[in-house]
Structure formats: structure tokens, C-alpha cells
């Protein structure tokens, strides 16, 4: 027999203690939002914002992100690129595909505005070198330049590039990249807290017998083993 000086806490006593703990709903919402954003559930995060009124990250970065999105949506791609670089230059440095799509969008806007010479120059100087590095970039570049070859662009096989949905597509790509960059250096907090719970229980085990939770999926309190 092992002599024990462990304090025994019954289920009733423990539940009383649990009831004294107040966890704020806003904080739980934030925790869930943090999980959705950091794990890349961008759409779910947006829905959750609407349904629970929880903002992602802080308001300032949302505003910045929205400004970038809006710039792309309204065709000011140069402005958008500048804003992204202001936020974090690494976003474009580490994401060649996104950068290419933004440049492609810029080309589309030049063509839309009838700036043919400028468009040609831009395509040859800025986009062609990137196309050499990557086959799919090259195909997209050729498709975009083809816009110049049609008189009635809207009804051409590449007319979809001029569509507003192309802007939206690029905008949401930038948006996702910024979101990722803002959370990328951080892991979600929830798994850490779950580990902390198991750790805290292990620590308390040394001094007391009390109702534990071992099944994280059901959060069931188990009767203390005495």
C-alpha cells in the first residue's frame, strides 16, 4: 500500500469550482476565428464573421486587406501591388504565381484602356521573362496578349479575361495570400491550449485526485480514481 497525501476532490466539489470559472463568449469566438483563419478556412472565417460578429485579426489589417482587394477590383493593379508590398514584401516575393497573376491583370487593364503600345512593352519586358521560367505562365501570357489580336474582343475566345469575374478572381487570390501571410508565422492557438489542458491535469495529478477530462472530443468529466 502506498501512503498518499493527495487531496481528493469529489465531482460535486469540482463542478462547483468549474462553475466559478467564467469564460467569455467573445474569447471563445476569437479562438475559433483564430483557428479558422490560421488553418486557412478563409470562407468559413468570413461566414463566421457574419454569423458571430467576430472580427478576424485586428481591424487595421482587415482595412488594409480590403483596400488591396478594392484596388484590384477597380482595376488599379499597380496601386494594389504597392499596397501589398507595404503590408509585407514577402507576400509577393514568395508567391510567384500570385505576382504573375497581378502582372497579368495589369496587362489586361492596359489593353482594356486601349494603351496598346504600353501593353506590348509591359508584356515583353515584365511578363515574358517570367513565362520562360514557367510553362503555365507562358500559356496564360499568350492567351492574354491574344486580346490584342481581336477587333471585337468581347466576343473573342479570350473575352472572358476582360470580364469583371477575372478581376474578382485575382482579387480573391491576393486576399487569400495576405490572410495567409498574416497568420502564417503563427500556429493556431487551440491545439496549444488543448496540450496545456493535458499538461495542467498532469501537474495537478501529483497533488490531487479530481475529475479529469481525457477524451478531448467529448469533454467528459471522469470520476476521480481514489
Amino acid at each position, binding site marked *: 500500500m502506498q501512503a498518499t497525501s493527495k487531496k481528493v476532490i469529489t465531482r460535486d466539489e469540482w463542478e462547483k469550482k468549474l462553475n466559478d470559472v467564467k469564460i467569455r463568449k467573445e474569447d471563445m469566438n476569437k479562438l475559433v476565428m483564430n*483557428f*479558422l483563419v490560421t488553418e486557412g478556412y478563409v470562407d468559413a472565417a468570413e461566414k463566421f464573421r457574419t454569423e458571430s460578429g467576430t472580427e478576424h485579426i485586428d481591424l487595421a489589417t482587415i482595412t488594409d486587406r480590403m483596400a488591396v482587394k478594392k484596388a484590384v477590383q477597380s482595376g488599379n493593379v499597380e496601386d494594389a501591388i504597392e499596397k501589398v508590398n507595404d503590408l509585407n514584401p514577402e507576400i509577393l516575393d514568395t508567391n510567384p504565381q500570385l505576382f504573375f497573376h497581378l502582372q497579368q491583370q495589369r496587362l489586361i487593364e492596359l489593353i482594356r484602356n486601349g494603351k496598346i503600345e504600353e501593353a506590348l512593352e509591359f508584356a515583353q519586358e515584365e511578363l515574358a521573362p517570367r513565362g520562360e521560367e514557367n510553362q503555365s505562365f507562358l500559356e496564360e501570357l499568350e492567351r492574354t496578349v491574344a486580346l490584342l489580336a481581336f477587333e471585337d474582343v468581347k466576343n473573342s475566345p479570350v473575352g472572358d479575361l476582360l470580364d469583371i469575374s477575372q478581376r474578382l478572381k485575382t482579387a480573391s487570390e491576393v486576399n487569400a495570400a495576405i490572410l495567409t501571410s498574416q497568420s502564417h508565422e503563427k500556429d493556431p492557438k487551440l491545439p496549444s491550449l488543448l*496540450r496545456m489542458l493535458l499538461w495542467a491535469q498532469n501537474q495537478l495529478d501529483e*497533488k490531487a485526485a479530481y475529475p479529469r477530462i481525457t477524451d478531448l472530443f*467529448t469533454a467528459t*468529466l471522469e470520476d476521480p480514481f481514489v
Partner: protein
Amino acid sequence: MVDDSDSEQVQKELDLVGSYFLELWRLKSKRASASSAKDVEMVNLGYEDEELGGEEEEEEEEESVPTELDTLNSSGGFSIVLPDKLSVQYPTVNLHGHDVGVVQANRPAPVKRLVYYFEIYVKNAGAKGYISIGFTTEGFNMRRQPGWEANSYGYHGDDGLLYRGQGKGEAFGPTYSTGDTVGGGINYGSQEFFFTNHSQHFKGVCNVLDARKNGQVVGKVEKDVKGRLYPTIAVHSQNEEVSVNFGKDPFLFDIKAYEAAQRAKQQTYIERISIPQTASYGIVRSYLQHYGYEDTLHVFDEASQSSVPPITGIHDNGFNEHGVYALKHRKILRKLIKDGQIDDAFGKLREWYPQIVQDDTSAICLMLYCQKFIELVRVGHLEEAVDYGRTHFEKFYSLKEYEDLVKDCAALLAYEEPKKSSVGYLLEESQLENVADAVNAIILWTNPEVKDHKSCLHSYLEKLLRQLTACFLEKRLLNGNQGEAFRLRRVLLAKNS
């Protein structure tokens, strides 16, 4: 068949659910009135509060901290505490080992935190430099150096030794003298004392030894006494003069970095613990189910099915016990309430769950009536609000338990800018959310599978967080109330490294 006693039982359970959310409301009400009076008490908060921001104050544990030297009990007459109560002098010639000038702080070191720390500056090392910094218990012999007696600890300047409970010191760190600053601290997490030395000489040594890791920490020693400890300084030769800094001025030692390093150390242990890979995912999912965030749940499920690798097995066990019970209804009602459409929410409840709103004076009805009133104030329909209040609040006036909350609502009428008033919290989104949560819980309660009304109140996530918090508190309680509590807010605000 429902007989009278059954229906009484039902009403009682309903009230338990409803009053839980009233209690949450009441907490906010108290916080709001406390925070409007808090500006007065901005003194003595110390470094701990800065990082949490003012909003957290009501959760901060009010503990008094040392602010100055004790002038009543200290010194035994051999030293003089100067009028600033932050400096001490030894004016005479010391004769023997029992005429030490010892001074304790006016209060013991606070314990409900991770770290306590203070510093002293040696203005004058006097004839022999018999200066020490340390910690002593309440009944310490006031004519002896800290460390010479049982239950006392001291880092001595003349020999750089660490004394703990006996006349013989242990090799510890460098000596210190005129112009030097040294510090003493308690780490409640590891139950150790630590001392720092900021002399130029020691700084040189530290740079060689990688100062960034240890700062100017000389060393640490196990704390084997449980009671309250007083920061203590001693002088013991002619003309010695020492001043103390209890945190009013910035410390030379980067205490925040030290704390962060201690936390990081603990964190590495925690990160080694393994949890099921899908645990977080399942908990988030059951949270969305519990509160009826159906749109989010839907998108979340879609995304996780197309994720690489797909998250499998979760739909069998990542489930709230209520599952999808009344999910559509709960979602619709949540949205109506969030949008301030209280009449419509009432209507739907009457249609779908008449038993919930049967008793017009129940907690849930009170919350809905109040919210409707709040919405009228929000859109500036004050006359209508007055009429509405007169019609619907009257029946609650006789119910003492609701009085304070109804009063809060009515008080909205008194302000030109109610948002900025002490009852402005009523206009915040979280108030609506609480009403929506209450209605959600009550609908969950109508699930015939439910055996215990408590399961309607808390999501799994909340249960886990409560358990986590309770474990920390209990551990501290069993540890002589020493150490810090767990605060979700701190975790949420912390930037992961």
C-alpha cells in the same frame, strides 16, 4: 400527459437555463459599472497590466505590492530610513554581528503571478561594503543579515556569496559595491529565487557567456519556504547607503524578457504533449453545432472534405451531443436576434417552441423584451421605447431578481448618447449575442434526448477551457496560492513566436 408537477419541473429547468444567461448579462453590467469607476485606481498596477490592456482589469487579481521601506519595525535602530522611504543609511560604526541595519519592504511580495522582482542601487559601500539584498519572512530577526537566519535568503555584496539560513555562504556570483545595481526576484513557477547584478564588470562576463540568454542573472536558488516573503535589504558598516526600486522607476533588468523566457520554457514542455490530430478540428466543429452557426459549419465541412489530406473519421466523433438538433431553427433565430428583429424572433418561438415562451415572466422572455426595448433606443424611437417599457416591464418590477437588469435598460433613456454611458454595454453586439445564445440553449433543452440541462449551456470548447482554468487555480491553491492563473485573454493576445 403532462400533469402539474411535471410542468412545474419543466418550468424550473427552463428557468435554470434562462437564469444562467441572465447571470452572464449581470456580469457585464457589473464590469461596466466597475470600469467607469476604475480610472481612480490606476496606481500600483505594476508592469503586469500593461500587456493586458486596461480592459482586463476586473480580471486582474488585486494584490497589494511593496511600495516603500517599512519604517516601523525595521532596522532595530541601527540604520536610518531616509524620508523618501526608499533609501537606507548606516550612520554609525558597526561593532558585532547583531547590529545589522535591516529593512524590510512595507508589504510582502505579491504571490499570484509568475515573477516578482525588485532592485537596489548602492550609493555608497561605506567602510566595508557589508550590503545585502534578499528575502525574509515576517518574524525575521531585525538585527541580522538576510540569509544568516532560518527562512531567509540573501546575496551579499562584500563576498558575492549566497546565504540561506546559516552563517556560511555558498559560492554564487560577483561582489558588488558603490555604483552597482543588483536585483532580487522570486520565480513562482519554478519556486526559485534569482538574483541579478548589473555592474559593468559582470556585464562583461555576461556578454561572453551569451547575455541574451541569461540577462544579468547571477544565479538561482531553490525556494524552500512557503510563507509570505518580504523584499529585504541590509547595511552594516559606516556610511553605507542603499536605495531601493520597487518598480516605480524602470528596472535595469529586462524583467519582461525574463518572464517571456520562463513562459517559453514551460511552453516547450507543453508542446511535447501529443493530442489527437483532429482534436481541434472536432472541437471547432462541435462549437459551431452547439451555437447554431450553421452557415459556417456548412462551409467548414465543405472545405475540410476537399482538404488535402481530407479530414476523416471526424463526423463520427467530432460531434456535439446535440448534433444537428433543430439546427435550422436555431440558425434562423440567431440571425433574427442578431439583426435586432426581436418581434419576429418572438413570433417564431411561439410558433415552433410555444413551451419556451409560455411563461411571460420567465428569464428568456425578460431578455427578449429588454432587447426589443434596447433596439428601439438604438434606432432612436424613444417614445415608442417608453411605451414598450411601460407595457412590458411592469410585470418584472415585482420580481426582485430582475430588478437591476430592467433598471439598466430603463437607464438608457436618461442619456443623450447612451452608447457612451455606463449602460452603453447594452448596445454592444455581445448583448445581442448573449440573447441569441440564451435562445439557442433553450431550444437545445427541448431536445428529448437531453438528460441534463447543463449540457445545453456549455459547448465542449467551453468545458475544456473551464477545466483548464480550474486546474491552474487548484494547482495554485495547493501551492500556497503562489503562481499565476490561466487567462485566456493573455493567450489570445500573445503573439506566437
